[in-house]
């Protein structure tokens, strides 16, 4: 133990030496620490343990959303549904050429497709439950994402993975900004002595989970040599710009964000 400590000390560690413990010792410490209710020290938009366990009986009043906040939620869920529609269609149309050339990718593609289909189902359910209008450009996104999936699939495995990488990067940023906004509301509510309410808390948990799964797809795509795609900069640049443009279009009041 001491020799390891001295070796790492020469390398200039940022952590104090007593943090250099074996994995088992770390786990045991962490478990005993959890029962003391220790706080996380890193600030991140990942879920904290306090968030995951909803209070049994929260007697604080539920925050009443302003009109602007309701419109933000409407617009956000509408864009999310359009995005998941695009994702499912991209995977559906990428699949045949990719699987034909690389049969070993079948399980991976199926896994990613199943997760996207689950996300799509989640957002469909939310839109139907809260009577939110879906995007008016539904057929346009249907055609565009099918075309994108098919053309990158035909270009080859690397190009298809580069497309996935580009789309998932933009989607990750997009979901992150939504989580940030919801966390701002949560803080505002807490300052006033209110809670967000069970629905919004559930939405926050859902969007975090979906964002994590999208970033997992990003990692899979990079593992599958996304960076080896031949016109890599051009491909990812065009696709990322297209995604940002699509998200922007979906916020235009007269096309998709318009209140019915």
């Amino acid at each position, binding site marked *: 133990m001491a020799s390891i400590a001295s070796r790492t000390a020469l390398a200039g560690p940022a952590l104090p030496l007593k943090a250099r413990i074996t994995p088992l010792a770390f786990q045991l410490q962490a478990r005993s620490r959890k029962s003391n209710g220790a706080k996380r020290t890193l600030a991140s938009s990942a879920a904290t343990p306090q968030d995951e366990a909803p209070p049994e009986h929260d007697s604080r009043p539920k925050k009443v959303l302003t009109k602007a906040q309701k419109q933000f939620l409407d617009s956000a869920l509408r864009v999310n549904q359009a995005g998941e529609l695009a994702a499912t269609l991209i995977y559906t149309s990428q699949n045949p*050429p990719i699987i034909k050339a690389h049969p070993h990718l079948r399980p991976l593609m199926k896994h990613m497709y199943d997760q996207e289909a689950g996300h799509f189902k989640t957002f469909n359910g939310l839109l139907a439950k809260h*009577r939110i209008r*879906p995007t008016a450009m539904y057929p346009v996104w249907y055609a565009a994402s099918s075309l994108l999936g098919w053309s990158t699939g035909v270009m080859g495995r690397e190009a298809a993975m580069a497309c996935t990488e580009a789309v998932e990067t933009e989607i990750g940023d997009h979901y992150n900004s939504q989580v940030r906004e919801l966390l701002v509301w949560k803080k505002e509510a807490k300052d006033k002595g209110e809670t967000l309410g069970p629905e919004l808390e559930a939405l926050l948990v859902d969007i975090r989970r979906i964002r994590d799964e999208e970033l997992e797809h990003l990692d899979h795509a990079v593992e599958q040599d996304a960076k080896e795609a031949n016109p890599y900069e051009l491909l990812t640049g065009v696709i990322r710009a297209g995604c940002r443009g699509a998200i922007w279009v979906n916020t235009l009041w007269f096309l998709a964000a318009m209140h019915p």
Partner: protein
Amino acid sequence: MASPAVVRTILRTPAALRPLLLRAPRAAYHEQHHDQATPYGDAERTILSHALAYVPAHGFTQEAITFGAKDAGYLDVSRNLFPKGTFDLVMYHLVTQRQGLKDRIQFPDETMGVGKKVRSLVIERLRANADAGVVWRWQEALGVMSLAENIPASLRELGLLSDEMWFLAGDTSVDGSWYTKRASLSGIYAATEVFQTTDQSTEFKDTEQFLDRRLEELRVTGSAVGNTMQWMGFQGGALMNMLRSKGVRI
């Protein structure tokens, strides 16, 4: 109810600013009964609800509003609360009937199809017009709604009614058909309502048959379009698969 302070406040505010006296509606996130907050304040609601009782006799006119205001204990001049005049009365009737639709009809039978439920909802809404006694004055209301400055609000209300009917019928589709369903039901409802204003049959039997014919047309057209699109999809897919089986890399 008719406190002098309230009336003084109303009369002192310039006509254009009187809507600002209304309390802004607030609602928690997307409760199931959303949009229950009407844009009417207490005074407006009282006057208009009393005025509706005078519509069968006096039609959708300023007279009805004046009688309603007097009935509710307000001064005659309270009709200045309604800058759009008779259109406010028409809209009040439309909004209250739309929001009351879910209380008028429930569907305990789970096996009833969405189409049948939509038919029941349209008939119930038309019956509500009859129950309120406004059917024989409805042509006046349609005239008022078709004035240029009132058309956007009227169309919006028709769209909201169509959305409400599909929601109460249990439709949960959120793809492109969301728009086509609401647009077609708006058209059918508007046509049937106009037909009802000239229907003299007992219990509006002719109106129901008119509605049935329109719904049948919609069903036939919808399935024709759907089947054609499906056929085109199959042809396209078959062509792609055939080329792939020949070795073309697509």
